[in-house]
């Protein structure tokens, strides 16, 4: 079973040389720490920066340079700042190559719910609806089950949707799965996790085709 850092490390393997990547809040943010040295990627943050670097050294924080999580950041050589409209032109126009974001639920046809729980305070969708509506390569990073132990990989989402039929791949603490026409196709198991373990906590259709390899890092 993976912890959050393990999920982030596995997600980092999805990065390809030359990718522009938008990372959501939470586990996805950690992915930036594990970019393979052999490739160049640039991180876009929808509040208006491309080419984000690490957090600033203590005392170097600039209130005017933050990411979409409102965290103080730095920029790398080649970075640029821009307005919100141009930022979403990058997203809507499919110039961002990969979006990694968290979710409360994903359905077997690729629907995603990650912004609203009826009866609870709604914080808003932020840029998530634009991202999932347009990105061609969307990977969800999440725990396989919620705190109550219920599967988050469902036949149909129960929560209000963020986007329809958009998720391509899911990396959880237990597995890597691809969203196919027939359901969740199991691609990899987390170390020490069996196919049976994954079956038990996957409510949506799970496709197991041959031997399922254990993840390698």
């Amino acid at each position, binding site marked *: 079973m993976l912890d959050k850092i393990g999920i982030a490390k596995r997600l980092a393997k999805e990065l390809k040389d030359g990718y522009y990547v938008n990372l959501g809040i939470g586990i996805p943010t950690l992915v930036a720490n594990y970019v393979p040295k052999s490739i160049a990627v640039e991180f876009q*943050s*929808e*509040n*208006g*920066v491309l080419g984000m670097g*690490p*957090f*600033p*050294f*203590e*005392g*170097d*924080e*600039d*209130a*005017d*340079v*933050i*990411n*979409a*999580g*409102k*965290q*103080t*950041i730095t920029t790398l050589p080649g970075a640029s*700042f*821009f*307005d*919100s*409209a141009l*930022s*979403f032109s990058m*997203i*809507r126009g499919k110039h961002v190559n990969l979006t990694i974001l968290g979710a409360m639920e994903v359905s077997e046809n690729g*629907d995603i719910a990650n912004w*609203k729980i009826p009866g609870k*305070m*709604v*914080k*808003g*969708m*932020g*840029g*998530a*609806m*634009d991202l999932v*509506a*347009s990105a061609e390569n969307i990977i969800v990073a999440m725990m396989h089950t919620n705190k109550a132990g219920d599967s988050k990989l469902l036949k149909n989402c129960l929560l*209000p*949707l*963020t*986007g*329809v*039929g958009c998720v391509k791949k899911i990396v959880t603490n237990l597995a890597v799965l691809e969203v196919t026409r027939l359901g969740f196709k199991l691609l990899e198991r987390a170390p020490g996790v069996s196919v049976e373990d994954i079956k038990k906590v996957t409510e949506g259709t799970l496709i197991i085709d041959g031997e399922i390899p254990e993840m390698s890092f």
Partner: protein
Amino acid sequence: MNKKVENVAKAMIDLKNGDTLMLGGFGLCGIPENAISELVRLGVKDLTCISNNAGVDDFGLGLLLHKKQIKKMISSYVGENDEFERQMLSGELDVELIPQGTLAERCRAAQAGFPVIFTPAGYGTEVAEGKETREFDGKMNVMEYAFKADFAFVKAWKGDEAGNLIFKGTARNFNPNMCGAAKITVAEVEELVPLGTLDPNQIHIPGIFIQRIFQGKNYEKRIEQRTVRSRS
């Protein structure tokens, strides 16, 4: 072409209860701090505010919420504010949540004279409920209207009396998209420089979109999430 006004009070002399306001900023970054303070001081009520976020409890738009001056918020993310939550759940505050890119583009549409946009964002979700949807090239889109607002309050880094603006870092965000998107756009700047100082090639927003500009003061620029790494 002198758009300079003496201070923030002069800049909003004709603002009234019930007005619709656009306010730049993302989180607390690049918000029009002086304009917000003046709105609090004026005590204007029943405002509709178009702003990506709603501030925090004791800063930004949170200050207006605290005094119950806001009737309706149009935002994409409002998560950092307890008073907001209380007013929203009690029904005192009307909230319209829309995707962030849609918010930016509805501002830009108003600035650019487009009546509507068609965007895929929100299709198939409750954001699209009651809205016209339409397929183009095999992909469904939602029709969204240009905003109509009385005032846009934006914050820039540098500006001149002609209204030309330059923003800094990610404090740019929605500010340029809101310029000229309301009947009256008021820009507050950290530094009002003499005409001719700004390089015409490096101006982010030409003065034509600005009606009033003033030198702001006492910028706090509060940081919401101070994240650092150690020097070791």
